[in-house]
Protein backbone atom coordinates (compact mmCIF):
# COMPACT_ATOMS: atom_id res chain seq x y z
CA UNK A 1 0.00 0.00 0.00
CA UNK A 2 1.35 3.41 -0.89
CA UNK A 3 1.61 5.86 1.98
CA UNK A 4 0.18 9.25 1.22
CA UNK A 5 2.78 12.04 1.22
CA UNK A 6 3.72 13.79 4.43
CA UNK A 7 2.87 17.45 4.63
CA UNK A 8 4.63 19.87 6.93
CA UNK A 9 2.05 21.49 9.15
CA UNK A 10 2.51 24.21 11.72
CA UNK A 11 0.07 25.85 14.04
CA UNK A 12 0.13 28.47 16.76
CA UNK A 13 -1.39 28.13 20.21
CA UNK A 14 -1.55 31.42 22.14
CA UNK A 15 -0.13 31.48 25.66
CA UNK A 16 -3.29 33.25 26.87
CA UNK A 17 -6.97 32.61 26.34
CA UNK A 18 -8.86 35.08 24.17
CA UNK A 19 -9.83 38.06 26.33
CA UNK A 20 -13.03 38.69 24.38
CA UNK A 21 -14.22 35.10 24.14
CA UNK A 22 -12.75 33.96 27.45
CA UNK A 23 -10.85 35.62 30.30
CA UNK A 24 -7.46 36.45 28.73
CA UNK A 25 -5.64 34.47 31.41
CA UNK A 26 -2.60 32.27 30.84
CA UNK A 27 -3.45 28.79 29.64
CA UNK A 28 -3.76 26.12 32.29
CA UNK A 29 -1.60 23.08 32.88
CA UNK A 30 -4.58 20.92 31.95
CA UNK A 31 -4.90 22.56 28.54
CA UNK A 32 -1.24 22.02 27.62
CA UNK A 33 -1.32 18.48 29.01
CA UNK A 34 -4.34 17.74 26.86
CA UNK A 35 -2.56 18.99 23.74
CA UNK A 36 0.60 17.03 24.56
CA UNK A 37 -1.51 13.96 25.14
CA UNK A 38 -3.35 14.30 21.82
CA UNK A 39 -0.21 15.17 19.88
CA UNK A 40 1.69 12.23 21.35
CA UNK A 41 -1.09 9.77 20.68
CA UNK A 42 -2.07 10.93 17.21
CA UNK A 43 1.06 12.46 15.72
CA UNK A 44 4.05 11.09 17.67
CA UNK A 45 4.31 14.34 19.59
CA UNK A 46 5.44 16.70 16.88
CA UNK A 47 7.97 19.38 17.74
CA UNK A 48 7.65 22.77 19.35
CA UNK A 49 9.77 25.49 17.78
CA UNK A 50 12.05 27.28 20.25
CA UNK A 51 10.91 30.56 21.76
CA UNK A 52 7.60 32.31 21.64
CA UNK A 53 5.99 33.97 18.64
CA UNK A 54 4.59 37.46 18.95
CA UNK A 55 1.94 38.65 16.56
CA UNK A 56 -1.27 40.54 16.19
CA UNK A 57 -4.56 40.16 14.38
CA UNK A 58 -7.81 42.07 14.06
CA UNK A 59 -10.56 40.52 16.15
CA UNK A 60 -13.48 39.84 13.79
CA UNK A 61 -16.02 40.64 16.51
CA UNK A 62 -14.57 43.67 18.26
CA UNK A 63 -12.55 44.89 15.22
CA UNK A 64 -9.75 45.75 17.62
CA UNK A 65 -6.14 44.85 17.07
CA UNK A 66 -5.12 42.07 19.42
CA UNK A 67 -1.52 41.24 20.30
CA UNK A 68 -0.64 37.79 21.45
CA UNK A 69 2.25 35.43 22.10
CA UNK A 70 2.12 31.83 20.96
CA UNK A 71 3.93 28.53 20.88
CA UNK A 72 4.56 27.17 17.41
CA UNK A 73 4.02 23.45 16.82
CA UNK A 74 5.43 21.57 13.86
CA UNK A 75 4.16 18.20 12.75
CA UNK A 76 4.45 16.05 9.62
CA UNK A 77 1.03 14.70 8.69
CA UNK A 78 -0.08 12.37 5.92
CA UNK A 79 -2.42 14.13 3.53
CA UNK A 80 -5.04 11.50 4.27
CA UNK A 81 -4.93 12.41 7.99
CA UNK A 82 -5.15 16.18 7.70
CA UNK A 83 -8.77 16.08 8.80
CA UNK A 84 -7.61 14.59 12.10
CA UNK A 85 -5.30 17.51 12.73
CA UNK A 86 -8.06 19.96 11.87
CA UNK A 87 -10.43 18.16 14.26
CA UNK A 88 -7.82 18.30 17.00
CA UNK A 89 -7.35 22.05 16.46
CA UNK A 90 -11.11 22.62 16.42
CA UNK A 91 -11.27 20.98 19.85
CA UNK A 92 -8.23 23.03 20.88
CA UNK A 93 -10.21 26.22 20.11
CA UNK A 94 -12.56 25.31 22.96
CA UNK A 95 -9.93 24.07 25.38
CA UNK A 96 -7.56 27.01 24.81
CA UNK A 97 -10.35 29.61 24.65
CA UNK A 98 -9.73 30.73 21.06
CA UNK A 99 -12.09 31.79 18.28
CA UNK A 100 -9.85 30.09 15.73
CA UNK A 101 -6.37 28.66 15.37
CA UNK A 102 -3.86 29.52 12.66
CA UNK A 103 -2.82 26.42 10.72
CA UNK A 104 -0.31 26.32 7.90
CA UNK A 105 -0.32 23.22 5.67
CA UNK A 106 2.62 23.06 3.28
CA UNK A 107 2.65 26.85 2.96
CA UNK A 108 -1.12 27.32 2.75
CA UNK A 109 -2.70 29.12 5.66
CA UNK A 110 -6.14 28.43 7.05
CA UNK A 111 -7.95 29.26 10.27
CA UNK A 112 -9.55 26.38 12.08
CA UNK A 113 -12.57 27.22 14.20
CA UNK A 114 -14.83 25.17 16.42
CA UNK A 115 -18.19 24.45 14.85
CA UNK A 116 -21.15 23.39 16.89
CA UNK A 117 -22.17 19.82 15.99
Amino acid at each position, binding site marked *: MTQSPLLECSFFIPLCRDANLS*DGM*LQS*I*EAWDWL*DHEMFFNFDGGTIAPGEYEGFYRDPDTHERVFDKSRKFLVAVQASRLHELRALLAAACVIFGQKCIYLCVAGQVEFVAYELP
Partner: protein
Amino acid sequence: MSSPEEYIDLKGKVLSLARLDPDEQGLVRGFMARAEGHPDWNEYRNFWMSTVWDFYSARGLTRRATQQTLPYLIGQDLCSRIGISAGYVRQSDYRDELEQLIRTRFSNRREFCEATGLAEDMLSHVLARRKHLAVDTLAEALARVGYTLHIVPMPRSVSHT
Protein backbone atom coordinates in the same frame (compact mmCIF):
# COMPACT_ATOMS: atom_id res chain seq x y z
CA MET B 1 8.38 15.79 50.69
CA SER B 2 9.43 13.32 48.05
CA SER B 3 11.85 10.57 48.87
CA PRO B 4 14.01 8.88 46.21
CA GLU B 5 11.27 6.25 45.98
CA GLU B 6 8.40 8.60 45.31
CA TYR B 7 7.42 11.57 43.22
CA ILE B 8 4.74 14.07 44.24
CA ASP B 9 3.09 15.70 41.26
CA LEU B 10 1.61 19.18 40.98
CA LYS B 11 -1.76 17.90 42.16
CA GLY B 12 -0.19 16.40 45.28
CA LYS B 13 -0.53 12.83 44.01
CA VAL B 14 2.22 10.51 45.27
CA LEU B 15 3.72 8.33 42.54
CA SER B 16 5.76 5.38 43.77
CA LEU B 17 8.98 4.92 41.84
CA ALA B 18 9.73 1.64 43.60
CA ARG B 19 7.79 -0.39 41.03
CA LEU B 20 9.83 0.97 38.13
CA ASP B 21 12.61 -1.23 36.81
CA PRO B 22 16.20 0.11 36.93
CA ASP B 23 16.10 1.45 33.37
CA GLU B 24 12.83 3.27 34.00
CA GLN B 25 14.26 4.72 37.21
CA GLY B 26 17.23 5.92 35.18
CA LEU B 27 14.83 7.49 32.70
CA VAL B 28 13.07 9.39 35.48
CA ARG B 29 16.38 10.47 37.05
CA GLY B 30 17.41 11.80 33.65
CA PHE B 31 14.19 13.81 33.38
CA MET B 32 14.73 15.26 36.85
CA ALA B 33 18.37 16.09 36.25
CA ARG B 34 17.54 17.90 33.02
CA ALA B 35 14.68 19.81 34.66
CA GLU B 36 16.91 20.99 37.49
CA GLY B 37 19.09 22.75 34.91
CA HIS B 38 16.19 25.18 34.24
CA PRO B 39 15.91 24.41 30.53
CA ASP B 40 13.73 26.25 28.05
CA TRP B 41 10.13 25.10 28.42
CA ASN B 42 9.66 24.14 24.76
CA GLU B 43 13.05 22.48 24.55
CA TYR B 44 12.25 20.38 27.59
CA ARG B 45 8.89 19.36 26.16
CA ASN B 46 10.52 18.11 22.97
CA PHE B 47 13.16 16.32 25.04
CA TRP B 48 10.95 14.42 27.46
CA MET B 49 8.37 13.47 24.87
CA SER B 50 10.82 12.10 22.31
CA THR B 51 12.84 10.35 25.03
CA VAL B 52 9.86 8.59 26.56
CA TRP B 53 8.58 7.64 23.11
CA ASP B 54 11.95 6.15 22.09
CA PHE B 55 12.27 4.32 25.40
CA TYR B 56 8.89 2.61 25.37
CA SER B 57 8.56 2.04 21.65
CA ALA B 58 11.81 0.04 21.91
CA ARG B 59 9.94 -2.11 24.45
CA GLY B 60 7.02 -2.54 22.09
CA LEU B 61 4.57 -0.41 24.08
CA THR B 62 1.80 1.35 22.23
CA ARG B 63 1.48 5.08 22.53
CA ARG B 64 -1.66 4.66 24.62
CA ALA B 65 0.17 2.32 27.00
CA THR B 66 3.15 4.67 27.13
CA GLN B 67 0.85 7.48 28.25
CA GLN B 68 -0.06 5.42 31.32
CA THR B 69 3.55 4.98 32.46
CA LEU B 70 5.03 6.87 35.38
CA PRO B 71 7.94 8.28 33.34
CA TYR B 72 5.44 9.79 30.88
CA LEU B 73 3.43 11.36 33.71
CA ILE B 74 6.55 12.60 35.47
CA GLY B 75 8.04 14.06 32.28
CA GLN B 76 4.81 15.91 31.66
CA ASP B 77 4.61 17.11 35.26
CA LEU B 78 8.20 18.38 35.24
CA CYS B 79 7.49 20.18 31.98
CA SER B 80 4.47 21.88 33.58
CA ARG B 81 6.63 23.02 36.50
CA ILE B 82 9.13 24.54 34.09
CA GLY B 83 6.32 26.33 32.25
CA ILE B 84 4.91 27.70 35.51
CA SER B 85 8.33 28.76 36.74
CA ALA B 86 8.99 30.61 33.47
CA GLY B 87 5.63 32.39 33.69
CA TYR B 88 4.15 30.70 30.62
CA VAL B 89 1.58 28.55 32.37
CA ARG B 90 -0.92 29.25 35.08
CA GLN B 91 -1.07 27.08 38.17
CA SER B 92 -4.46 25.46 37.90
CA ASP B 93 -7.25 25.73 40.43
CA TYR B 94 -10.49 23.86 41.03
CA ARG B 95 -12.12 25.52 38.01
CA ASP B 96 -9.54 24.04 35.64
CA GLU B 97 -10.13 20.66 37.23
CA LEU B 98 -13.87 21.11 36.82
CA GLU B 99 -13.38 21.91 33.13
CA GLN B 100 -11.22 18.83 32.74
CA LEU B 101 -13.77 16.67 34.53
CA ILE B 102 -16.55 17.92 32.25
CA ARG B 103 -14.42 17.39 29.14
CA THR B 104 -13.35 13.88 30.01
CA ARG B 105 -16.43 12.44 31.74
CA PHE B 106 -19.40 14.25 30.24
CA SER B 107 -20.50 15.05 26.73
CA ASN B 108 -21.19 18.70 27.57
CA ARG B 109 -21.80 21.17 30.39
CA ARG B 110 -25.53 20.54 30.38
CA GLU B 111 -25.04 16.84 31.06
CA PHE B 112 -22.65 17.69 33.90
CA CYS B 113 -25.16 20.14 35.40
CA GLU B 114 -27.96 17.60 35.20
CA ALA B 115 -25.79 15.05 36.99
CA THR B 116 -24.51 17.39 39.70
CA GLY B 117 -27.54 19.61 40.24
CA LEU B 118 -25.56 22.77 39.49
CA ALA B 119 -27.28 25.51 37.49
CA GLU B 120 -25.84 25.98 34.02
CA ASP B 121 -25.69 29.76 34.45
CA MET B 122 -23.76 29.41 37.67
CA LEU B 123 -21.33 26.93 36.15
CA SER B 124 -20.78 29.26 33.22
CA HIS B 125 -19.92 32.14 35.57
CA VAL B 126 -17.62 29.94 37.62
CA LEU B 127 -15.70 28.62 34.62
CA ALA B 128 -15.40 32.16 33.25
CA ARG B 129 -13.91 33.14 36.64
CA ARG B 130 -16.62 35.64 37.44
CA LYS B 131 -17.95 33.73 40.45
CA HIS B 132 -16.91 31.04 42.90
CA LEU B 133 -18.83 28.07 44.16
CA ALA B 134 -19.22 27.69 47.92
CA VAL B 135 -17.14 24.79 49.17
CA ASP B 136 -20.14 22.85 50.46
CA THR B 137 -22.03 23.37 47.17
CA LEU B 138 -19.03 22.15 45.19
CA ALA B 139 -18.50 19.16 47.49
CA GLU B 140 -22.15 18.13 47.24
CA ALA B 141 -22.19 18.51 43.46
CA LEU B 142 -19.00 16.49 43.05
CA ALA B 143 -20.24 13.77 45.38
CA ARG B 144 -23.23 13.24 43.10
CA VAL B 145 -20.87 12.22 40.28
CA GLY B 146 -18.44 10.26 42.45
CA TYR B 147 -15.76 12.88 43.08
CA THR B 148 -14.48 14.68 46.15
CA LEU B 149 -12.26 17.57 47.22
CA HIS B 150 -8.78 17.25 48.70
CA ILE B 151 -6.41 19.67 50.38
CA VAL B 152 -2.87 19.10 49.12
CA PRO B 153 0.48 20.80 49.72
CA MET B 154 1.23 23.71 47.40
CA PRO B 155 3.68 22.58 44.75
CA ARG B 156 7.08 24.11 44.25
CA SER B 157 7.49 25.23 40.67
CA VAL B 158 10.46 23.38 39.19
CA SER B 159 11.61 21.00 41.87
CA HIS B 160 10.00 17.59 41.87
CA THR B 161 9.20 17.78 45.58
